[in-house]
């Protein structure tokens, strides 16, 4: 499952840079694309606005077939207060822009990618390609939620992959 999660994050990250290179965040002193995985960050990063925060929740495993089919639910949480220079009056448009970016990133073809194993990076090694793909569904947009001065939304995507032998 971990390789599927990592691969999906890297794909989303790369595509977001192409769709809107200005969607960035500063996290621990480093500028990076405006997407993060909550479970991989310090707790202080979680409330960041104007970026996409990935949260992995439900996991299902279908053991039928040659390899178990794993389905993970990925939630994209994002919120914006609009731009300060406009007093936040453009927060609706800012949220709509984030909706459009996410839609472009998720629905861009192909909606799959070769699964990669990133474990080697922990020892300054390299990533290795695996034998199967990761693929994902279309996005399902949730309701707009008013969170104090911010507008927030959660959009979900189902991410699927086959569990290869020896995978975490």
């Amino acid at each position, binding site marked *: 499952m971990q390789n599927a999660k*990592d691969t999906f*994050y890297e794909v989303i990250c790369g595509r977001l840079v192409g769709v809107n290179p200005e969607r960035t965040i500063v996290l*621990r*002193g*480093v500028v990076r694309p405006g997407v*993060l995985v909550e479970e991989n960050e*310090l707790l202080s990063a979680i409330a960041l606005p104007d970026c996409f925060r990935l949260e992995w929740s439900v996991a299902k495993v279908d053991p039928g077939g040659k390899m178990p089919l794993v389905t993970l639910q990925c939630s994209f949480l994002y919120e914006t207060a609009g731009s300060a220079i406009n007093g936040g009056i453009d927060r609706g448009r800012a949220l709509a822009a984030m909706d459009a970016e996410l839609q472009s990133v998720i629905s861009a073809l192909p909606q799959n990618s070769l699964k990669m194993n*990133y474990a080697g990076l922990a020892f300054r090694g390299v990533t290795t390609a695996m034998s199967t793909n990761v693929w994902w569904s279309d996005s399902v947009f949730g309701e707009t939620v008013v969170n104090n001065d911010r507008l927030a939304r959660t959009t979900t995507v189902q991410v699927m992959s086959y569990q290869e032998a020896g995978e975490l």
Partner: protein
Amino acid sequence: MQSSNGAIRLADAVMQSGGGRTVLLRIAIPAVPGDPAEQLGLATPEYQDIALAPATFHKANSVSKLLVSASAVHEALGSLGFDSADVLFETAVGVMIDDLIYKIKNSYSSQAVGLPYCYWLTLEPPVR
């Protein structure tokens, strides 16, 4: 400004005479640019402990509070390049007191002439 400095000195003196101690503010050092290992949770960030003194620790029932001298906080802000104490406390991993890491739930300052002379931190003890 002089009144504020006087308030800071007075607060420091009161804390020191009342059993002021040193606590360690733990912050993560800046990430490595372009390193996907940290973004994927594969590499643990390195941490830096900043000494804050004088400070007094209050623990009553389930509430833990830390009173920290503004002079210590301002010195840390200057050396670490943070914009404000709020950002420093929000990005910190926690405060180490007696070898235990307490998470910072919130912070606020007591002020004189519009400038802080001490900071109050509400802490959450570690789960045992």
